[in-house]
């Protein structure tokens, strides 16, 4: 945020842009149009599509933290995992309704986010990074040890999920899963978009840029950080529940460092702090991974690595960063 220019016409343009920034632009409909078109053109890829949508929601929740509030974390899988296990444990113990499963997962992950956030957010920088890692590692060990409830390293078995609205059964081809995940992602995106365009969202950007100054103007920095941490955790929990319900299983991998790290990579590929980074980075990474792994199941990691190097060298700031630079554009908001 640079200081506004002194001359009046420029300032008016800035103010206009600021006032219009929450309005929908036609480009924002593109991801949804593409998702619906893919439903009909790639009939055999619905299972992959559903996982991509759920992961986009997960990446979106991470973007709220890293991109907007400037809270760096390497343990975001903790909340994904809490949501997945919450939905999974319910479904394995006689409560099979999927939508209420999502709500419970959001609550459980939100509570975990609030409780851990109240402690770890007292720190910042590398210390914070380590603390978030520790939270995820502790939860993973808990899930590993508590075998009677979580199934330990064998994973949680015996989940049964009812049809959505009692009608749409989760089928072998992933048709229901595709639409289900897409619809939930749409709602999550609406919520996230509203949030970051709100005054609360703007204050987060302020905290990211200069927390001391925000304190000086009287903003409750600590409280806002905990609120966004809780909201982001709840969204991550919904994403975890989506994956758990559509695949009918939860494993220890849901809480792993690998999952947190991979998510960060996907977000970086797309572009951090731009809301749509998740919509580009996640499909790019997951489709590349799927294709490489199908063509060369033994050495596909090499090709992913090569792809990552090229991406890092030639596409700094992620795909959206490249586009913005081409258009002489702006740094992330």
């Amino acid at each position, binding site marked *: 945020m640079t200081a506004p220019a002194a001359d009046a016409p420029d300032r008016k343009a800035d103010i206009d842009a600021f006032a219009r920034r929450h309005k929908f632009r036609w480009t924002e409909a593109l991801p949804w149009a593409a998702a619906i078109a893919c439903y009909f053109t790639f009939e055999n890829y619905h299972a992959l599509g559903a996982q991509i949508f759920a992961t986009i929601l997960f990446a979106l929740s991470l973007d709220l933290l890293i991109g907007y509030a400037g809270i760096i974390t390497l343990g975001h899988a903790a909340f994904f995992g809490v949501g997945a296990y919450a939905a999974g444990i319910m479904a394995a113990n006689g409560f099979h309704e999927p939508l209420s499963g999502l709500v419970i997962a959001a609550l459980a992950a939100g509570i975990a986010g609030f409780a851990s956030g109240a402690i770890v957010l007292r720190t910042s920088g590398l210390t914070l990074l380590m603390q978030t890692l520790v939270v995820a590692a502790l939860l993973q060990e808990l899930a590993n040890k508590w075998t009677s409830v979580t199934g*330990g*390293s064998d*994973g949680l078995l015996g989940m049964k999920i009812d049809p959505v609205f009692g009608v749409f059964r989760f089928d072998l081809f992933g048709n229901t899963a595709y639409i289900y995940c897409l619809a939930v992602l749409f709602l999550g995106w609406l919520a996230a978009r509203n949030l970051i365009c709100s005054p609360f969202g703007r204050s987060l950007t302020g905290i990211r840029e200069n927390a001391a100054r925000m304190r000086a103007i009287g903003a409750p920095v600590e409280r806002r950080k905990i609120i966004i941490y809780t909201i982001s955790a709840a969204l991550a929990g919904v994403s975890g529940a989506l994956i758990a319900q559509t695949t009918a299983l939860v494993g220890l991998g849901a809480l792993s460092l690998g999952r947190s790290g991979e998510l960060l990579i996907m977000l970086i590929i797309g572009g951090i702090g731009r809301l749509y980074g998740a919509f580009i980075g996640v499909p790019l990474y997951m489709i*590349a991974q799927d294709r490489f792994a199908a063509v060369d199941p033994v050495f596909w990691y090499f090709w992913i690595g090569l792809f990552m190097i090229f991406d890092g060298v030639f596409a700094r700031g992620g795909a959206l960063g490249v586009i913005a630079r081409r258009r002489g554009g702006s740094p992330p908001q």
Partner: protein
Amino acid sequence: MFSAKISGILLGAAAMLGFTAGACAQTVKIGIISSYSGFLSQAADEMEKGINLHIKEYEKTLPAGVKLEVVRRDDGSNPETGKRVAQELITRDRVQLLFGIVSSPVAAAVAPLTAEAKVPLVITNAAGAGITRISPYVVRTSFTLWQEAVPLGQWAAKQGWKTAFTAVSDFLPGHDAEGAFTKGYTDGGGKIAGAVRFPPANPDFAPFVQRIKDAKPDVAFLWVPAGAQATGMLKAARDLGLREAGTKIVSTQDLAPDEELPNIGDIGAGLITAGTYSTYGERPANKAFLAAWEKEYQGKAIPDFLSAHGWDGMTMVFDMIRATNGKFTGDEALKFFTTWKTDNSPRGSIAIDPATRDIVQDIYIRRHEMKDGKLVTVEFDSIKQVKDPWKELNPPK
């Protein structure tokens, strides 16, 4: 993304071409799911080599006109990915059989799909005891830890060793091994003097071995996942003089898989393990298996029990293809598998138990000793035709 999509389309088109071309001849399409990447990739490699070797050796013996097509997919040691690739193999590639799978969570994730799609799954490693219960379309040619550790416990009790101490890796397979050994040992009249569990990731074994030593048991049952940890465990036992203190060390074959023997070296001498397969097994079928292996891999790899289990899984599938001339439905293949048996496995005589679709096999009690400067395995006792004891102890509800 576009190039990825285009290659996807091309691949799809190629698959369709393959499908229509295959309709004139008889194409048998098998989907192999394995952990080519992730923390289980070393195990997956051992299994893959056994599977590939069998295909290479016996592809020419298939009935005339039958063509084998194998599609391989990586589960990354991750159940979600495993489930998704299984789903894609069934719906997109239209495979008639699923095969392989190293990790138990992946197998548990894939199993429910097989019932819905009526596509049989032949498991050639994943040893979680309950997995074959999940779907009636699951058949296993590998083993369960209960199958090895219960007979080992009984055998140890029979040696007149009165007290035992168990030390296992603290995750589910470790808990299985502990439970199974304890069951066999106490049923045989032995007494458990104590039990410890250590963290599965990079543990320091010394304090745990010290606790065993302090308890002065007649026998210590150790269990770590197959791989590099075995050497660390045995080193700690040697450094603290566990054996000199009068404690024998027993384990399942995970503590001394064939490819680890050169790394373990003389610290493994005196160790006793229970297992399904060893390269030192004196059986004609094993000799033939090793000769084929040597010809193919020329000393660059050592087979272990995973390779033998993968090889046997393919033997069963090939027998089924020969019996049906390559024309079979999922149910027909399953029916063949559930009554399948052979005396010609590198492991000896093996069979599928029709009631549980799990394998019945001999469990060998082996002693590891130094011979010409090399650690070798000597099979000196065996328990014949062991069924998975877990299934008898936990009848279906």
